[in-house]
């Protein structure tokens, strides 16, 4: 049945799934840009600047889509989930307010200087603008994850007449799951941006780009990924332990455990069935889930049956989790293998480049899967123990929601195709661009000859 509740949930899921793709790229990509720019300023090597110039264009495009879809998100709370702000507005409001005040204005304003100001401000100010945009995007993640984590593990408030009132802002922001979730998300963004940069750089090389910049960005991004991937596995483990403590029903769904058991197996494959409350075709490694989650072979894990009508839908959580972890392991292997080739040999075989092109957007899939685990895993609660999703939804007629949902789906589908096509088009354009690769910096470090603008004529027919 598609009532206003279901349609609003689909619309929210569609909006946030589309939106999150772009911050996931830009949060970390901006730090890559900071790195390229600072390296250029320190070494005077123009290859860093070329890397910056190409990726700042991709950044700008990703950022623009992130901004406009983010504005849509900010309206969703009021249009589709009025019960959310009525119940927990006293807490969600200031967190969202601080995001706008400290992050949005900072990134939006300095983005102008970062993109268009290099000839108008001293180089140091331009580098500073890049750093401020990077801080802005990360601050934005800080506030939004503080809110999301609070919804998962609410603390620092009291209920009066069905409305939440803040009692301790420090406890609200630094709620129990916040540090894990924030770091997990920042690392996810790092991996997404790394594989994106690696994929497009590999694509340029495959298309015959003989310049130094794509090789450099390929190497840097793979090394970053090789460091982040195992870190992410470790942080993910801590995050899981934290979830077990605060949201055991979510863990039970992730692991597909129906009956409370000791020495629970880690299921590699299964088809969870909510009707019979069993798993079909389960293949598992004995005792491993207990070992990972309780650090004891015979540790006890609570089953879904202890959370009658209070646990999330099992199959989407169970499967999303496996997609996320599987992709994480793939990224770990690829980044280590790739870094080894780039560092030891300075190049890599063609088949490996092709694999990297294929995994350009692997971070997107892993991040989305991760968010489905955490957000679907929170159901049936919108704010754990405080507000159920079904109690927050709008009383609007379903037809209105269906209308807006159709609009969004059309626009988002179109934009996603346009975005991916344009990124690859930009890569092909860059292959053909003259970059005066032989023109190395002069011994005195003076870059005046090599830093001529050669590309990126924004707003002209030549672009």
């Amino acid at each position, binding site marked *: 049945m598609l009532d206003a509740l279901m349609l609003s949930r689909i619309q929210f899921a569609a909006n946030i799934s589309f939106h999150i793709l772009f911050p996931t790229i830009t949060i970390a990509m901006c730090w890559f840009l900071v790195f390229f720019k600072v390296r250029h300023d320190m070494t005077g090597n123009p290859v860093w600047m070329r890397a910056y110039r190409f990726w700042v264009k991709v950044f700008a495009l990703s950022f623009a889509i992130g901004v406009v879809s983010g504005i849509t998100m*900010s309206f969703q709370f009021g249009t589709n989930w009025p019960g959310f702000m*009525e119940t927990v507005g006293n807490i969600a409001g*200031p967190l969202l307010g601080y995001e706008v005040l400290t992050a949005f204005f900072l990134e*939006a304003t300095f983005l102008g200087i970062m*993109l268009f100001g290099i000839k108008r401000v001293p180089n140091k100010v331009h580098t500073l603008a890049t750093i401020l945009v990077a801080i802005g995007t990360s601050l934005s993640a800080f506030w939004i994850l503080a809110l999301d984590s609070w919804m998962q593990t609410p603390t620092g408030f009291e209920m009066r007449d069905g409305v939440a*009132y803040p009692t301790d802002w420090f406890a609200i922001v630094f709620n129990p799951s916040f540090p894990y979730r924030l770091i997990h998300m920042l690392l996810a963004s790092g991996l997404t941006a790394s594989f994106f940069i690696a994929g497009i750089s590999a694509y340029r090389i495959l298309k015959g780009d003989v310049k130094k910049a794509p090789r450099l960005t390929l190497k840097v991004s793979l090394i970053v990924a090789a460091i982040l991937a195992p870190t992410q596995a470790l942080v993910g483990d801590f995050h899981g332990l934290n979830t077990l403590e605060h949201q055991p029903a979510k863990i039970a769904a992730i692991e597909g455990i129906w009956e409370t058991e000791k020495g629970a197996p880690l299921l590699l494959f299964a088809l969870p069935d909510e009707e019979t409350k069993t798993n079909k075709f389960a293949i598992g490694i004995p005792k491993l889930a207990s070992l990972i989650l309780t650090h004891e072979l015979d540790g006890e894990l609570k089953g879904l049956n202890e959370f009658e009508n209070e646990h999330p839908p099992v199959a989407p959580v169970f499967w999303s989790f496996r997609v996320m972890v599987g992709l994480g392991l793939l990224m770990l292997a690829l980044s280590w293998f790739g870094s080894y080739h780039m560092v030891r040999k300075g190049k890599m075989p063609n088949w490996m480049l092709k694999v990297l092109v294929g995994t350009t957007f692997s971070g997107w899939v892993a991040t989305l899967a991760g968010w489905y685990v955490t957000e679907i895993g929170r159901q049936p609660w919108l704010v754990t123990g405080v507000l159920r999703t079904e109690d927050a939804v709008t009383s609007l007629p379903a037809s209105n929601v269906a209308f*807006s949902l159709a609009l969004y789906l059309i626009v988002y589908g179109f934009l996603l195709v346009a975005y991916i096509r344009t990124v690859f088009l930009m890569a092909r354009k860059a292959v053909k661009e003259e970059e005066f690769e032989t023109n190395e910096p002069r011994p005195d470090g003076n870059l005046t000859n090599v830093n001529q603008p050669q590309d990126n004529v924004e*707003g002209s027919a030549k672009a």
Partner: protein
Amino acid sequence: MMDAYWLPVIFIGLMGLSVLVYAILDGYDLGVGILLPMGEADEAQRDTMIASIGPFWDANETWLVLAVGIMLIAFPAAHSIVLYHLYIPVAIMLIGLIMRGVAFDFRAKAAVDHKLAWDRTFKAGSILTTLAQGYMLGLYVMGFEGGISTHLFGLLSGLGVTAAYSYIGAAWLVMKTENSLQQRAVAWTKTTGRFCFMGVIAVSIVNPLVNPGVFDRWFDFPLVMFVLLIPALCFAAFLFNDFLLGRLPKENDRHCWVPFSLVMLIFLLCFSALGFSFFPDVVPGQMDIWEAASAPESLIVILIGALIVVPVILMYTAFSYWVFRGKATSLNYH
């Protein structure tokens, strides 16, 4: 309790300020989008026009997020009512904003033969946004009463707001461009100014007629002698601007900034008039700011932050306008 009285007043002031700043800033860049000439020969002028707003549009749009954010934070009850009634126009406005925002970036990066299509998207997105915003303003002024007259007034208001945004956008171009484009901009400012004037007159007549409370407030003797200064000043600004535009551009581009300043003054006056009509109601005729306000402990927390952060925002915004001062040139990433 002082807090419970003053905090909502301060926040409605902050929200009003954000709406006004948004209307001026995003107003001019939406206006530039509306005015884009679509002829094939106009491509260079389109490039310059879009370049004139390139470094600013993103930050301009953030004021809308702040305004809606303040309503969400400070007046959640009103936020629910307003967005309930404006669901469809909000969705349309968001689609318009998406179209405008992405077209700006895609136009320069997509394949050359797609550029014109993205320029059309840019223009269409800008028009859709301003029509939707004007329609929402109309419904708001009517207190969300149902019926055909409300929607008609909404449509009228949509056209009025679109004219007003075009007016400020054209005046922005008079200031930021030169040569033949500037001459076209002068002509656009003159025309859109007259449409905007008619829109202001229409809304000024209809508003007190449909809202008896508004009528009483405006024609309350002896205050009327004082408040009528607002329409009088507004009328003078329109008239003077029309007169001045007949003489632009002048030698050495003197006074090219005056039309934009006058339109800002007109926006300020119209906005004060609306505020004067409805304060302290946050949903006209239904709910005042004290009924809609959220808990003082939340408002204090955000107010302290705002008092520290907003001056910093204003400072770096000013810095950005200073960096990109002067005439718009074609946009270069580097």
